[in-house]
């Protein structure tokens, strides 16, 4: 199989998508948001298709919103929970995945603590693979819903200024968001202390700052990341209190944001670390909107991958 995966069959990474693809997904999302607002929010678009959740890592929002998205499109869903599966008997990832595919499924949504797992899975099987977060690598559907939410509030994002603040090194959301926001023409600044930045940022289309207070007044979106306490082998900052003092968004800092600047967070939040409780309640804080839009964005993704009804080889050459 070719190394560059077919972006029309799988969603593995934002970097596989052209700007036009991203725009198309965001545009289509509106049609699906409308479905969610109906009294009976269900359309038969994916009737007879089966989607499996393969989550090797904990998740609330991503999994539930994928589940809601699949149900609203009338797809069947099969749950795979690692805790009660043969993984506990030592079954390998490949054997597990091939066994699942043998049951006749159309898509696997994969979350794993190792980067690159969805790509490997895509090499092994014929079903569509959707990356729902792989290690510290990417989380493409999160980036798409972030874009959709930001576009809904701010309109065209070209020239917009986005600050991504906090634990960049361990964040797959940051990687996907940098690619997605820059693809839409926004300028991204990473704001973090040195230990929380990746070792090398070579080739990244970003600016870097170590001072949140300096950038606050110049940005349109303040994107806060969760301190990933479970992923950091040893915490890279001297203390959470110190991190909060320098990089946490409290009321005083939030007041210095421009009028209309958005405050975003992928969740789950550590209240009192990267974001203060009263900042969460502000009118320009769109964290719950992000969650709500997650369902519609994932409907669009599932529909584009599974609902075309066309042969995938034909699909590849199909102009968007």
């Amino acid at each position, binding site marked *: 199989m070719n190394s560059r995966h077919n972006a029309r069959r799988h969603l593995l990474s934002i970097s596989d998508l052209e700007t036009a693809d991203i725009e198309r997904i965001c545009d*289509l999302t509106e049609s699906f948001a409308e479905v969610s607002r109906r009294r009976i929010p269900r359309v038969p678009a994916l009737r007879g298709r089966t989607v499996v959740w393969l989550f090797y890592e904990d998740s609330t929002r991503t999994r539930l919103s994928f589940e809601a998205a699949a149900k609203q499109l009338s797809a069947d869903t099969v749950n795979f929970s690692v805790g009660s599966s043969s993984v506990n008997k030592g079954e390998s990832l490949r054997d597990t995945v091939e066994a699942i595919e043998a049951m006749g499924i159309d898509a696997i949504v994969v979350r794993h603590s190792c980067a690159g797992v969805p790509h490997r899975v895509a090499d092994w099987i014929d079903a569509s693979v959707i990356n729902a977060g792989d290690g510290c690598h990417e989380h493409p559907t999160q980036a798409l819903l972030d874009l959709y939410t930001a576009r809904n509030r701010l309109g065209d994002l070209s020239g917009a200024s986005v600050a991504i603040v906090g634990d960049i090194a361990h964040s797959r959301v940051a990687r996907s968001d940098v690619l997605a926001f820059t693809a839409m023409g926004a300028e991204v600044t990473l704001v973090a202390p040195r230990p929380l930045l990746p070792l090398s940022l070579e080739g990244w289309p970003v600016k870097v700052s170590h001072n949140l207070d300096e950038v606050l007044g110049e940005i349109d979106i303040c994107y806060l990341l969760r301190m990933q306490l479970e992923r950091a082998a040893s915490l890279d900052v001297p203390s959470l209190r110190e991190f909060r003092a320098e990089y946490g968004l409290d009321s005083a800092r939030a007041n210095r944001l421009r009028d209309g600047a958005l405050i975003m967070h992928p969740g789950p939040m550590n209240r009192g670390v990267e974001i203060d409780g009263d900042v969460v309640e502000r009118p320009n804080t769109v964290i719950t909107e992000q969650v709500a839009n997650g369902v519609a964005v994932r409907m669009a993704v599932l529909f584009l991958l599974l609902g075309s009804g066309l042969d995938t080889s034909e699909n590849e050459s199909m102009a968007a």
Partner: protein
Amino acid sequence: MAERERRFTVPHAGGTFRSRSQVMNSDDVGRAVRRMTHEVIERNHGSSNLVMIGLQTGGVPIARRMVDTLAEIDGYSVPAGSLDVALHRDDIGLRPVLPQAETLIPVNLDRQVVVLVDDVLFTGRTVRAALDALHTWGRPSAVQLAVMVDRGHRELPIRADYVGRSLPTNLDEMVDVQTDGVHIGELV
């Protein structure tokens, strides 16, 4: 299929519409809209409880004209909506889902008489999908169908209640309804 839709259709199903002859001019279309609107009022004994819903994309402008005409005749403005049935089709994937084809159902449809409006009635599959879609908003007391052109070749047991013009066609012909008239031709 309306022009807008065709522009987004994948090449093997799309193409450009070439008119061979004009079968209705804009006055004919206007008169047909007027007559159908009168028939809607007559059959429903007035216009209370009516909701006009245009099917995306070709039915929407016709529904709008019928609502305007109805306001002129009866002095009452009935709610107008639009419905995109793309996600309810049985040939899903063969036609594009258009982001700009907006679904807008302005009122609760329970106990209302819904008049679906489309430009061309052909196989009946669009109407089948529309009936399916309507149920996700409520339970209308009746659903009626108005079309500008009935071109025959039905594949489902569906008929229109109000017809602008019955137009016998060949299967490979295309009917194109615009505000300036109705053309018959083919895709090239």
